[in-house]
Structures are given as structure tokens and as C-alpha cells.
């Protein structure tokens, strides 16, 4: 839902970032307002996953230029946990397994960290169990997964559901979902997309990072951005994704070759 007067949540300005001295992001500009759903599309290596990692504060990535403003605060100054506590959420493409750490305990500590930041009281084990069972419905997840170690031995679909469950518990203002659709069969994809749609509202925003149209058939974006060579090359409405589906990414190469970096139109 596009509302020009909605508060600006995330404002990315000329963002450059590198990993192991290799520049990946080369001037990304993107503004996200409350209520909006954005999709960033692009080929492998275009920098879209890097963008999500940089926003979440992954230590392997170094920001070399540019700024990211999150609701008036300098996001890049904050530790990853601080970003999460103030409402930024990253749904991982490959959620790691953490043997030995109980999923339920992990979810409770994470939820309470976010609640403490918002001034809500801490939930004890019982209150939290009630909450988590209610939120499990969002992703139709089996409560048995709560008793296991974080993501350990979960299938691809179960891991992604666990990600959306975390999103449901943390109630982020900006949720970045990195290739959430990858490795999911059609039923799992529908469940995950349903979850995301249930959680989207006028107060929050979603940034979907994806390869394919099939996720966007289930979650309708307000904006579609095409990323290539570390920049956003084109921005349009949901019809841009359909066009990509039809024509593929070949035109991107042509356009990249034709345009000087300085003259690339960005949203």
C-alpha cells in the first residue's frame, strides 16, 4: 500500500560496501515507507543478498561509503542485535543450525530482547509458551520444532517457517526476506507467503529479495527494483517483475554496458 504521507522507515543513500576488499555494493539508493512492500530482483551476484547482510550488520561486510537512516537513526552505527531490537528483521536465505541451543529458549530470549527495547514487560516461560503457540499458527508449524535445537536437522521448508515464526514474534517494522522462496515446494511457499501477508500492515514494511516471480504471485509488491552490478538499475511497479519473467535478465547486461554508472537512473 503506497501512501506518500506514510512515515519514512528506511532510507538508503549511495550505499557502497565490500567484502574482503572486493566491492559489491556500488551506490544503492532506496527509500521505504510504512505500509509498502518492495521486491528487489536480480541475478546471482548482483549484490541483493549483500544488501540484506549489510542492513542487518553482518561483520564480514564493510561499508565504504553512503548512509542508511532507519527512523531517524544512523543504522550503520548499531550492533546487529541493536538493529533487531529496534525492529529490523532479516529472514536468512540459509538459516544456520545451532546445535545444543533450544529453539524455544532462543525464541524467548530474542522476543524478550525486542520487548525490553519497546518497554514491554519480560514474558516468563509460561506467558511466552502461550504467545508462541498462538504465533505458530501463522506458519502452521508443528510445536514439536520448539523442543529441538535451533534449525538443527530442519528441512529447508521448516527452516524458512522457523524464520517467519521469528518474524511473527519479533514484530519488526522493516522485514527483509532474503530468498525466502528458495528451496521451497509450492505448498511450503504458500504457507510462508501467507505468513508474510498476515504480518504485513500499514505500520510496517517488507523488502523481498528474490529471483523469481513465483513469490510475487503470492505477495504483491508495491515496488519492484532490479539490481545489477551492485546498483539498482530500474524501479517500477509489480508489472516490472512480470516483464522480467517474460524477457529474462539479458536486457540488464545491455543496459549496463550502455550506461555509464553516473547516469544510471535510480529510484
Amino acid at each position, binding site marked *: 500500500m503506497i501512501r506518500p504521507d506514510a512515515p519514512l522507515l528506511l532510507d538508503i543513500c549511495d550505499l557502497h560496501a565490500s567484502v574482503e576488499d572486493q566491492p559489491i555494493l556500488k551506490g544503492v539508493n532506496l527509500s521505504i515507507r510504512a505500509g509498502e512492500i518492495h521486491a528487489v530482483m536480480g541475478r546471482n551476484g548482483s549484490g541483493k543478498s549483500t544488501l540484506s547482510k549489510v542492513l542487518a550488520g553482518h561483520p564480514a561486510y564493510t561499508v565504504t561509503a553512503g548512509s542508511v537512516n532507519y527512523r531517524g537513526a544512523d543504522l550503520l552505527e548499531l550492533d546487529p542485535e541493536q*538493529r533487531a531490537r529496534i525492529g529490523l528483521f532479516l529472514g536468512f536465505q540459509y538459516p544456520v543450525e545451532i546445535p545444543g541451543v533450544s529453539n524455544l529458549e532462543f525464541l524467548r530470549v530474542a522476543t524478550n*530482547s525486542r520487548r525490553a527495547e519497546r518497554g514491554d514487560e519480560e514474558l516468563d516461560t509460561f506467558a511466552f509458551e502461550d504467545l508462541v503457540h498462538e504465533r505458530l499458527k501463522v506458519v502452521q508449524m508443528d510445536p514439536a520444532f520448539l523442543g529441538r535445537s535451533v534449525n538443527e536437522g530442519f528441512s529447508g521448508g521448516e527452516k524458512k517457517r522457523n524464520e517467519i515464526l521469528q518474524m511473527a514474534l519479533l514484530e519488526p517494522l522493516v522485514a527483509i526476506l532474503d530468498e525466502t522462496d528458495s528451496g521451497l515446494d509450492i505448498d511450503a511457499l504458500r504457507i510462508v507467503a501467507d505468513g508474510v501477508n498476515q504480518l504485513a500492515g500499514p505500520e510496517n514494511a517488507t523488502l523481498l529479495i528474490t529471483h523469481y516471480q513465483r513469490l510475487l504471485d503470492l505477495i504483491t509488491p508495491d515496488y519492484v527494483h532490479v539490481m545489477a552490478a551492485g546498483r539498482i538499475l530500474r524501479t517500477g511497479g509489480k508489472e516490472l517483475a512480470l516483464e522480467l519473467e517474460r524477457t529474462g535478465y539479458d536486457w540488464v547486461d545491455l543496459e549496463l554496458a550502455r550506461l555509464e554508472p553516473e547516469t544510471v537512473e535510480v529510484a
Partner: protein
Amino acid sequence: MSTATVGDLVSQPYKHGFVTDIETEKIAKGLSEDVVRLISSKKDEPDFLLQFRLRAYRQWLQTAEPDWAALGYPPIDYQNIIYYAAPKQQEKKASLDEVDPKLLETFDKLGIPLSEQKRLSNVAVDAVFDSVSIATTYKEKLAEHGVIFCSISEAVKEHPELIEAYLGTVVPSNDNYFAALNSAVFSDGSFVFIPKGVECPMELSTYFRINSADTGQFERTLIVAEEGASVSYLEGCTAPMFDTNQLHAAVVELVVLDDASIKYSTVQNWYAGDENGVGGIYNFVTKRGQCRGARSRISWTQVETGSAITWKYPSCVLQGADSVGEFYSVALTNNHQQADTGTKMIHVGPRTRSTIVSKGISAGHSSNSYRGLVQIGPKALGAKNYSQCDSMLIGDQAAANTYPYIRSQQPDAVVEHEASTCRISADQLFYLQSRGIGFEEAVSMMVSGFCRDVFNQLPMEFAAEADKLLALKLEGSVG
């Protein structure tokens, strides 16, 4: 961006490093036959015990200090150690009200309140300060069930027949260098006797406190569970921070008869020395249990976080048919600590079973070795052992060694060993952080997760304590 490394987090100040200012009676430094006689006479011991000590002393003189462990330390000058120190109070008091308030205060500070009002509701405590036991709680209540729980000195006086029957039968005085030394000079410790068919109504616990700088601590613990009896016992230990090393050479003997069980848990937090490896306790301990009866069971659980040097292999001799031995261990070393610890499971009887779960965490410049022996004797038909040894390395200066020996003479037995090494990966940390969990808490969660299989074995009352202790060790500043 957080700049703290995982390594920073495992460094934390030692919280039990204070010294109690109390008048102490000490004998002169050094060890000789006269010193052994003096200790025995101070304790007014029967002749059999004096003879036991003298025999051990002579055996000690003939024995060489072991050098096979992966430990390095300067030679110990056994003549520069005081072998007996006791806070000055004439007799063991009939009532706690008469115990020197300074001592009560000391144990209060350590979180072990002894007085009637404050003491733990379901745990009986024997408190040992330097060489002597100063108080044992809930003795009367236990006596109603026929359970004897007292200091070993008291047991020598009141139950000499039990001491004579069991002392030195599991760990003979010539078993090894440190056991011989302990047998010659042991000062105090705990004695537990659970008679036939009795399930001990509460947890038993001994708390050891070293206070003097130049005193060695040589406690002796003996626990006997008769047919069908069971008990859960926990020991804890702390010491002040001195820049010299104190020697601690304990012996623990467990005897279980038919269908009996002993669960023995240790939370070891002796002073570990400073970040440069100066000071700290040298901990040379011989712990062994004998499953003498059929279907008997011994379970060792240890959480080793302290000491500059740890040399300790709580073991089970599984004689009775179908007896069970278990060893669950967490050993955390940091700075310049060195630990060489593990277990021996000696399968003698048929269908005996043993389980070993060892979790070693090495940080700083420390060295952490698991050394274990699983031995299957020719009569151990159908014996089974499963061992799992995992190491977690924090930083690239710490060493993790694994030496699991297996000796088998019985084809109809199954021995399985598995070991792995892991670290806290940056990706796992980032994942937890990206859910709002702070760096320290993330590390702590992963370390407790790594140790969970062992913590689950601790008695309820102490599982939280162990978790807290580890968290404490992990507490630090995120820069």
C-alpha cells in the same frame, strides 16, 4: 559494531578470591614420618589408621610423581608445604551457634549459608575449612533414616569399624603418587553411609574452602551405599587468590553394593591463577568408585572450571554383573590453565555398561586434554561402552587434546567412541545477534548448549549453579 572477541568473554574476575582473617593453628612446614604421626595424634586416631598412614607414607617415598599427563609445571617442593592447618576453635561445636561467626560469614559469602534460618532446605552440607570440617547440617534428620553424614574425622571416632572396613579398599594407598601422599596426611573430608534399602531423603553436599596460602589440602571422602541404597552427593570448592600455588591432593572412594547407586557431582571452582598463569591451585585428585554389587550404579558428573592444574580421572570399576558406570564432564580452561582430565571405565563383570560424555572448552592460552580408558576384561561378556568427547576451541592459542584409550579382551563386548571439534562460528553468532540477542548472551547460550548433555545430569539444585558459574566465566565487557 562489536569489537569484543569470544576470547574476551571467557575472562572474568574470580569472585571467591577473598581471604578470611582468622587465627589458625598450623604445624611446621615439611613432611616426615613425625609429621604423619603428629597429624594422627592431633586427630586422636586409632592405631589402625596411624599404621595405614605410615604405610602410605613409606609407599609414597618409593613412588615417582607421574609425568605422563599433558601438563607442565615447576617441580613441587613437598617440604615447603604445611600439612595441617585448622581454624582455632577447640572442639567441633555441638551447635552451629558456637561456631566462629567469621567462619559462618565466610560460607555465607560463598553462597553456602549454614545457620538454621538460612540454610538450603533440601541439602545437607558438610563445610570444610582448610584441614577440618567445621559444621555439618541436618545430621539429626539424616540419622532418623539411618544415614550417616559427618566429617571423616568424626567417623573415625564414632564408626571406626566402617572406616576400617572400607578405607583404602577402592583406592589402595599405593595406587599412585598423589593417592599415597593423601593417604599419609589426609586431614578431613566427608563420610557418608547409606544403609541397606534407604534412599537418602536429601541431597548431600560438602563444600571445601582453602584459606591459608602455604597449606596443602588433602581431603578424603568415603561414600558407602549398601544394598538397594541410593544417594546424590555434590562437592563444591573455592580458594582465595594467592600468587603462589597451593597443592590439593584429594582421594574419593565410592562403594556400591547390589542395586545401590551413588550420583556424585562436582562443581570445581578452585582459584585458577591470574591471566598470566601466576598462582592457582594444583589439583591432583584420585576419584574412584567400585560397583561391587549386581545392578549397582555410579554416576560421576563434574564441572571443572578452576585450578591452575587439573589432574583428575573419576573412574568406575564395574565388578557386579549388570552394573553401570557413567561419567559426564564439562571442563573449561582459560588463560594459562591446564587440565588433563577424563575417566577410566574398567569393565570386569558381565553385561556391565558405561557411558562417557566429555565436553572440553579451551580458551586463551590454556590446554585442555581428555584422557580416558575403556577397558573390557575377559569376563565382561556383553559389556557395552559408549563415549563421546567434544571439544570447543575459542581462539587460536588454546589446545584441545583427546586421548581415548580402548583395551578389550572380550569379543562379545561393544565399544564405541566418537569425538568432534567445533568452535563458535561467526555465522551462528550473527544469526543470534540478528534476532536481538547480545553478543555475550549469544556466546553464553552456545556454550551452555554445548554443555547441555552434562548439565542435565546435575541435581536440580545445582544445575542452575553450574550454568551460572559458566555464565560468570563468560561474563566480560563488549567493547
